[in-house]
């Protein structure tokens, strides 16, 4: 078992027994689901919208070479810089070198999961720079020195009281837990950061190939401040974020908003074309786009799971996942949590270390049903499981048990006799009062459940003895 798997099991045991935590998640998901149901009702045909979004992303992902180059050319024509980072190390180094060369002391960041993925903030801090997350949720978890709990709502696990206490300690906030007042406390600090930072870093929700533009979606307006006030703007994003045409946003924007939060459209949708040009009143002096691969092109080569690159990071699969609801976001120990994280992480960080996430699912399929770009998520968990067995990462006893299972099931007589023997032994143990104890042969089952009463005979024996119950 990998270190990540051991840690997952430890945290899962702790969190799944934490009723207060489960209630917090349930409360948030109830609100989300009600909003999304209203959101879906605004579409005349939600299923058709999903299918259209799948087609757009399919076209982009399957012609990634063409659309990325088109995007790059357009950006460069306007004087922007595009850097292709094959690894997270390359991505980090480009931004760090740039920041050092330009004498940056302070950085403001708009929400970006890719910068989390490449661990950009710690790298900048190590160089002595001050880095501010400016999405309120991200800022809260940054102040707590925690990773985001959820890819869309990073501080979902916290209540007002906890945030009040945090702000009191870190920002000199007051005794109120009134949300507008709490926001005002954060805003005081962040506004100063916006106006004094030399570099703004953002992610991208979409890269528009035909326009050579970066599309950013936020609810707080912080994205616009990060990308227009500091003199350098760096966009860091995954190569799969490109879409062919500007008009594709007409479908993708409302679908992303609906799946993400249930909103008809997110509050701020910004299209950025590059640095400030002559005659313009605002915008940065320099514009850089870092296109991160970090394992994505390997996924592109995997025709079975290529659709994972369709993901628009809406978070719907996390919200729909009963496992996420039971264990919460931090248990995963990954940047991307929930079903998409369980599918994606083995590709980004290694199958042997992260294959346990593919098993930590009941395969209920709710994630696949809600995915707005129709990624076959729960079947990919099955594919990852198959790949893990093929790679030989599983222990010998399990392999031998599976071989025994096959051998038994290849012959009906063998199955009848062995099944009968197993049942008789368990019945005997239960008759001796061992049911539910540490000596119960069904201990793996009864550790968490009341023991079941086993029948004295099987269906096939009954059928044979009674000639089909006649």
């Amino acid at each position, binding site marked *: 078992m990998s270190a990540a798997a051991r840690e997952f099991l430890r945290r899962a045991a702790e969190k799944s027994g934490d009723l207060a935590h489960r209630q917090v998640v349930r409360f948030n998901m109830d609100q989300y689901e009600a909003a999304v149901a209203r959101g879906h009702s605004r579409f005349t045909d939600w299923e058709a919208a999903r299918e259209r979004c799948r087609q757009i992303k399919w076209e982009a992902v399957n012609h990634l070479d063409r659309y990325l180059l088109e995007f790059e050319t357009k950006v460069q024509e306007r004087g922007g810089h595009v850097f292709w980072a094959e690894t997270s190390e390359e991505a980090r180094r480009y931004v760090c070198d740039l920041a050092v060369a330009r004498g940056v002391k302070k950085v403001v960041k708009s929400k970006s999961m890719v910068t989390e993925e490449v661990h950009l903030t710690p790298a900048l801090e190590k160089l002595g720079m001050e880095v501010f997350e400016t999405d309120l949720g991200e800022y809260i978890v940054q102040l707590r020195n925690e990773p985001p709990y959820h890819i869309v709502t990073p501080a979902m696990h916290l209540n007002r009281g906890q945030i009040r206490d945090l702000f009191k300690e870190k920002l000199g906030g007051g005794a109120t837990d009134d949300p507008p007042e709490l926001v005002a406390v954060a805003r005081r600090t962040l506004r100063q950061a916006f106006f004094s930072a030399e570099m703004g870093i953002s992610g991208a929700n979409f890269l528009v190939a035909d326009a050579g533009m970066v599309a950013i979606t936020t609810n707080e307006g912080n994205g616009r401040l990060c990308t227009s006030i500091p003199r350098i703007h760096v966009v860091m994003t995954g190569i799969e974020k490109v879409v062919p045409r500007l008009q594709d946003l007409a479908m993708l924007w409302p679908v992303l908003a609906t799946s993400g939060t249930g909103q008809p459209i997110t509050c701020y949708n910004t299209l950025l074309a590059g640095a400030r040009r002559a005659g313009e009143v605002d915008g940065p002096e320099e514009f850089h786009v870092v296109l991160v691969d970090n394992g994505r092109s390997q996924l592109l080569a995997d025709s079975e799971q290529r659709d994972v690159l369709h993901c628009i990071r809406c978070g719907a699969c996390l919200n729909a996942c009963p496992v996420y609801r039971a264990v919460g976001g931090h248990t995963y120990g990954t940047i991307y949590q929930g079903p998409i994280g369980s599918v994606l992480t083995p590709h980004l960080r290694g199958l042997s270390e992260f294959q346990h996430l593919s098993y930590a699912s*009941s395969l*209920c*399929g709710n994630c696949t*049903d809600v995915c707005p770009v129709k990624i076959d998520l729960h079947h990919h968990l099955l594919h990852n499981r198959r790949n893990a*067995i093929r790679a030989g990462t599983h222990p010998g006893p*399990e392999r031998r048990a599976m071989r025994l299972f096959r051998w038994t*099931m290849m012959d009906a007589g063998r199955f009848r006799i062995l099944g009968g023997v197993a049942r008789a032994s368990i019945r005997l143990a239960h008759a001796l009062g061992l049911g539910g104890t540490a000596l119960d042969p069904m201990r793996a089952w009864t550790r968490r459940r009341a023991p079941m009463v086993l029948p004295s005979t099987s269906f096939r024996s009954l*059928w044979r003895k009674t000639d089909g119950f006649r």
Partner: protein
Amino acid sequence: MCGAPFRDYNRGVVASKVSLFIPCFIDQLAPQVGVDVVRVLRRLGYEPDFPAQQTCCGQPAFNTGYWDEARPLAERFVRIFESAEAVVCPSGSCTTMVRNFYPELLAGTPLQEPAEQLGKRVFEFSEFLVKVAKKLDVGARFPHRVTFHDACHALRELRLKDGPRQLLRHVRGLELVEMPYVEECCGFGGGFAVKFDMISAAMGDSKAQNIEASGAEVVTSLDQSCLMHIEGMLRRSNARARTMHLASILAQEAE
């Protein structure tokens, strides 16, 4: 497969002869469910046969990633049932294995095509009643308050939602009540139930609470595996409700 719109698999199937596919765990752990399936089918005039060579569809190995162990079991299954007119199975999950996953598991083998054909003739029990036998009233009487749990494979792989509820509404004396979060997984999930037993139990605990909230005396479903897990959770929390497979409710005689 999943995500694909529901296809009407039974178009053109008018079965007079049906074969029983009794999943291995029902055979060994809940034989009464199989007996009840036979009783309901006989009441509707079918004379089912039980191919004695059948064992397991291979799903436990397939779902754990051991596709090389599952494949010979799938091949064996296809050969055993190849000549059947219609196959009835009291499990949404095992029906899914044959209909949705065999074509992928057997892709590129000589049995891929026969498996695809067989998939169109394998029916989950309630699906068979509604779509092939076209009977919503099977003459059952069960004067109790019942809630129906949507088992995941039946709901999301086979898209069975209204059929079983319609069958329940036609049972004399039965009061059908819905539980909150009815489509949320109960947490069984095969090997998941023991490999990640703490998560499975947390999910089962939520399910048990939702069942209790419905006020039902009995919770029923299309999958005995989910019900065994739910029963274990209900009993452990000293809840009032008990589990019964849909076939066992429909087998209760009217007279």
